[in-house]
């Protein structure tokens, strides 16, 4: 086992996820199986290999730097229960 339950649980908390006991057991198995599979990469010589990118994308296509207001901001705000005027409202971030 590469990762213990405690380690996986702490990664889950970084991802803002709280796992049930069953979910934790399943995820530990899942990640360890997966890491074992990825260990096969070590058989390859990757020293002079570049990370992947699509050859056609030599540069990111850019649009003109011009503000285009979204036509229907009302529709966006209507989808949230946490709205105050034209703002989204979130719980306090700073601790006391």
């Amino acid at each position, binding site marked *: 086992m590469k990762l213990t339950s405690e380690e*996986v649980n702490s990664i889950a908390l970084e991802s803002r*996820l709280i*796992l049930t006991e069953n979910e934790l057991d399943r995820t530990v198995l899942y990640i360890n199986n*997966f*890491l074992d599979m990825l260990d096969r990469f070590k058989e390859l010589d*990757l020293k002079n290999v*570049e*990370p992947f990118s699509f050859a056609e994308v030599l540069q990111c296509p850019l649009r003109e730097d011009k503000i285009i207001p979204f036509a229907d901001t009302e529709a966006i705000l209507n989808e949230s229960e946490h709205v105050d005027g034209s703002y989204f409202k979130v719980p306090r971030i700073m601790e006391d």
Partner: protein
Amino acid sequence: MELYELNLWHLIMGLQEKKFSASELYESCKKRIDSCEENIHALITRTDDIAANQLNESNSGILSGIPTIIKDNLCTKGIKTTAASKILGDWRPPYDATAWKFLRNSGALLMGKANMDEFAMGGTCEKSAYGPTHNPNDLSRVPGGSSGGSAAAVSAGYVPFSLGSDTGGSIRQPAAYCGVYGFKPTYGMVSRYGLISYGSSLDQIGPFARTVRDLQIIMSIISEYDPMDSSCFREKKHDFTYNENISLKGKRVALVKEFQDFTLESPISEAMKRTQKILEDEGAIIKEVSLPVIAALAMSEAHTNLERYDVVRYGYTVNDSAGIKEMFERVRSEGFGSEVKARIIAGTCLTEPTRCEEYYVAATKVRTLIAQEFARAFGETDFILQPASPTLPGKIGDSGHDSLKEYEADLYTLPVNLAGLPGLSFFTGYYGDLPVGLQLIGARWSDTELLNAGVIIERHTGSPKIANEGVK
């Protein structure tokens, strides 16, 4: 013959020649959905009423009056879009996905949003917060996934064509399981704007239909350039027009050497042999290419893509949390299914600073090697023939016991996404009641040649029949 049984090309011709009306076609498809949906459950949301309103709008596009269904990870303005997850709640996107916009502008009527594995993570269509879809050829079996609802809907005759998305085989495998044609275009061919992302550098939208010609019609509509997707390539123009005078004479079709040692279920290996014979009879040269493939990258992108579900701006939410951290934790833990959580955690794990170089960066380098392998192979061959899956569809409830076996099955489809290639899943015949499909892969931007090859194969195999097991 009922109208819902006709394929897309015949429906377009019939409507243009006024042999029947769009209303008659709509009623026929609606009745078909009514009679099968309870048993198949291909849809998360039915939108017959929206389609009925569309009938009253005038549209002279090629798809005017043609009913369709799209996967529920494609945004539809003002219409609930769930990606089969609880976390999006009753979210109604304020905009349309470009691929759907192109279809809508061509006159297509939206009959429903198709079921799928949650956030497209799965290969059986069982991992949906809305329950599993059943295979219309055998209700005890899965339709494949993740675009299982889209494939099942076309197989059962709900609509003549549908849209799905393919990150690691999610169009090609369910097409084979349900007995329809499915096409995953070259990465960059179809705009992904409005597609709820899984692995952004792997995802591609594509059609399902009951003939290859029908796939060509849809590809000609959805492959238009879209400035809203930076991976959509402007320079490429493609002609998907159906052409009778095509030939495979002298074309090279390769089998992958390394896959010869893998175990296939006998109906699939038999279909491989039959298809080789068809290709040889058509003048193609069968050969072998070497392609040592290793899979796995999608998860690391998934964890980044799913970080946007912050519970504030849309979707499932809670109102009584003490602070922002508690709010995120509660909603994400309650809103995501177990499979999605496991993949998010795997992605976080692989991209942490301590493991990033060892695993994630190594994976992106392996991806370069895979793309180079394919590029070399397509110097020696025009197409690669291989299964879309090593097995026939399994029983509902049987999957998920052996995740390594599932990764192995992905080896037939995922490398195509890693290299951004096009792949056609095609029907070869039946084994008992179950359809058997295979896959033909081409070089990047060879989509039109690939579909032409599919047209020739279909002349030998015949088109699949509509599956009737779901009828009440």
